C-alpha cells in the first residue's frame, strides 16, 4: 500500500506534470527545429508568434462561446484552433514575404536571419499587445479534469491522489498525433521529401525542380500549425499572457538543442528531458521516501537536491553536459 502511495505521489507530482509540460515544450521545440532545419535560422520570434496564434484562437473561442457553440466536455478552443492556425499562417506568410524572403533572395548568411528574427520579435511583441493588450486571459471551458485527486482517493482508497487534467490529456494525445503525422509527412510524402531535400541542399533542390517557394510556404504552414496548437494547449493548461509566451522561448530552445537542432525526434525527446529534469531535480523527495522507506530510515529533511529557485539552472546544466559529451545533441542534429 505504501509503495502504491509512493508511486501515486510520484506520478501526481512528477510524472504527470512533467509529461504534460514536456509535450508542450516538445511541440514548441518541433517548430523551432523545423525552422532551423529548413529555413536555417533560430527563430527568436517563436514565443511571440505563439502568443499571436493563441490570441487569434482566443478571439474565435470567445466568438463561438458568445454564439453558444461549445464542445461539451472539451474546451471550445479546440474548435477555434483551425482559425487560429489560419490567422497565424497569414501572419507568418506575410512576414516571410515582406521580411525574410528578401534576405533569402540576397543569399544572406543565416545569422543575418537570426538578427532579423530579433527585429520581428520586437514587432510581434508590440503587435500582440496592441491587439489584445497585455492582460491575462482565461479562455478554458469544458470539463477540467479527466480524473481529479479527490475522486481518485475515493476510488482507490489510497492516501495520495492522482489528478489528470483534460488539457494534459489533450496535450499528450495531440503531441503524439502531431509528431506521428509530421514523421509520416516528412519521410513518406513527396512534398515532405522535397522539404528534406531543400533542407539538405537548396541549390540542388532547385536543380531537381523543387520550388523553394513551395517548400518555404509549406514549412511556415506547418510551423504555424505547430505553434498555434502548442500555444493554445499551453494557454488552456495554464493561462494566456503574452509575456509568458516570450519567456517560454528559453526552455523551448533548450529542448530543441538538447535533442539536436534540426532533428524532429530530438525536439520531442529534448522537450521531455528538460521537463523531467526541471521537475525531478528540484523535487523534494521527502514524501515519496516516507512512503517507500521503512520507518527507521525516513528522512527528516526535504531531500531536495536543489531549491526550485534554480530549477531554471538545472535545464541549463543538463544542456551544457549534453553538449559537452554530445555536441550535436542527443539525436544528431544539423549542427555537426
Amino acid at each position, binding site marked *: 500500500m505504501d509503495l502504491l502511495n509512493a508511486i501515486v505521489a510520484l506520478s501526481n507530482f512528477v510524472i504527470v506534470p512533467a509529461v504534460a509540460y514536456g509535450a508542450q515544450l516538445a511541440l514548441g521545440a518541433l517548430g523551432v527545429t523545423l525552422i532551423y*532545419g529548413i529555413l536555417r535560422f533560430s527563430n527568436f520570434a517563436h514565443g511571440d508568434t505563439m502568443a499571436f496564434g493563441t490570441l487569434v484562437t482566443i478571439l474565435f473561442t470567445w466568438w463561438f462561446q458568445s454564439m453558444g457553440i461549445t464542445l461539451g466536455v472539451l474546451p471550445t478552443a479546440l474548435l477555434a484552433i483551425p482559425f487560429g492556425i489560419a490567422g497565424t499562417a497569414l501572419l507568418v506568410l506575410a512576414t516571410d514575404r515582406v521580411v525574410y524572403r528578401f534576405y533569402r533572395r540576397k543569399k544572406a*548568411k543565416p*545569422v543575418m536571419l537570426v538578427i532579423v528574427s530579433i527585429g520581428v520579435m520586437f514587432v510581434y511583441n508590440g503587435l500582440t499587445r496592441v491587439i489584445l493588450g497585455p492582460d491575462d486571459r482565461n479562455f478554458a471551458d469544458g470539463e477540467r479534469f479527466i480524473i481529479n485527486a479527490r475522486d481518485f482517493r475515493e476510488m482507490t482508497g489510497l492516501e495520495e491522489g492522482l489528478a489528470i487534467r483534460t488539457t494534459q490529456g489533450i496535450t499528450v494525445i495531440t503531441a503524439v498525433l502531431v509528431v506521428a503525422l509530421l514523421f509520416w509527412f516528412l519521410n513518406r510524402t513527396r512534398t515532405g521529401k522535397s522539404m528534406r531535400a*531543400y533542407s539538405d*541542399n537548396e541549390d540542388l533542390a532547385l536543380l531537381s525542380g523543387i520550388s523553394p517557394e513551395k517548400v518555404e510556404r509549406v514549412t511556415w504552414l506547418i510551423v504555424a500549425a505547430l505553434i498555434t496548437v502548442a500555444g493554445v494547449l499551453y494557454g488552456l493548461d495554464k493561462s494566456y499572457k503574452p509575456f509568458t509566451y516570450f519567456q517560454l522561448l528559453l526552455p523551448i530552445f533548450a529542448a530543441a538543442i538538447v535533442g539536436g537542432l534540426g532533428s524532429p525526434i530530438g525536439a520531442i525527446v529534448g522537450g521531455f528531458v528538460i521537463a523531467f529534469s526541471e521537475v525531478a531535480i528540484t523535487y523534494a523527495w521527502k514524501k515519496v521516501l516516507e512512503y517507500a522507506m521503512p520507518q527507521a530510515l525516513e528522512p527528516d529533511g526535504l531531500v531536495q537536491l536543489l531549491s526550485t529557485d534554480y530549477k531554471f539552472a538545472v535545464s541549463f546544466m543538463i544542456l551544457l553536459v549534453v553538449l559537452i559529451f554530445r555536441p550535436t545533441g542527443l539525436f544528431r542534429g544539423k549542427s555537426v
Partner: protein
Amino acid sequence: MSGNPYQDDRGNRDRSIANPLGVGEVDGYRESGEVKPAPGKPFLSAEGMVGGYGGGDILHGCTITVERGEIAVIVGPNGAGKSTAMKAVFGMLDLREGSVTLDGRDITALTPQARVREGMGFVPQTSNIFTSMTVEENLEMGAFIRADDFRATMEQIYDLFPILRDKRRQAAGELSGGQRQQVAVGRALMTQPQLLMLDEPTAGVSPIVMDELFDRIIEVARTGISILMVEQNARQALEIADKGYVLVQGANAHTGTGRDLLADPEVRRAFLGG
C-alpha cells in the same frame, strides 16, 4: 567579407542559432519569362553570352553549341568563366546579352527549375547530392518533376551504376567520393534529360573512378543524351569529346574536335600543361 553586405556574418560559427548547411547560391524566386520558337539552331546553342554575378562581366561573348548525342567539353585556365558559362546556360545567372536555345526553342528567359522541365540536367561541381537522404531518395528527388512512373528509369540507372543498387538504402553522405559522383549523375539522369551538364565530375576522384566515370559518360551519350562538361583533366576528357572549347577570360579562344585541340601545340602548352 564579400561584396554582398547581407552575407556579412562576421565569422560567426554559432550553430546553435544558425544553420549554414546547404545554403544555396541561386535565386529561386525569379519568375520565368516566355519561350519563343527558334528553329534551325543546333540542339543546344548558347550564343554570345555576356554577363556576370552583378559586378563586372565574367563572360564576354562566349558561344557554346552541342548537337544531339554529342559530348562537348569546355577547358580553360582557372577563373576563365567555365563554371560561369555552365551556370549561364542553365539560367542560374542573368545574361545581359546572348541567348540560349534548346531543341528549337529560345529558353533564355527561363528559370533553372523550368529548364529542368525542358529537358536539361545539371550536376554541379561540388555538393551535388543530398547527403542526408538515402541513395534511392536522391534518385527520387531527381524525378521530382515527373508525374509518370519513374521506376523503370531507376532500374536503368541501377543497371548503369550497379554499386548504387547495393547501397540504395544507405545515406548518400556515407559513400566514397566516386560513388557520390555516380549518385549525382544518376540523380540528374532521373529527370530523363536530353542534355546533361557536368561541372568537373572528376575533380578529386581517384584515377580508377575517373576511368569508370568517363566510361559511363560515354555510355550515357550513346543513349542519345547530349553531354556538356567542364573538365580540368583536360587531356582525358578531350580524348572522348566530339567537340572541345577552350575558354579564356570569358570568351572562346579555340574550338574544334577533341582530337584537333589535343593535337594543337599551342593549346597543349598554354592550357593542357604541355
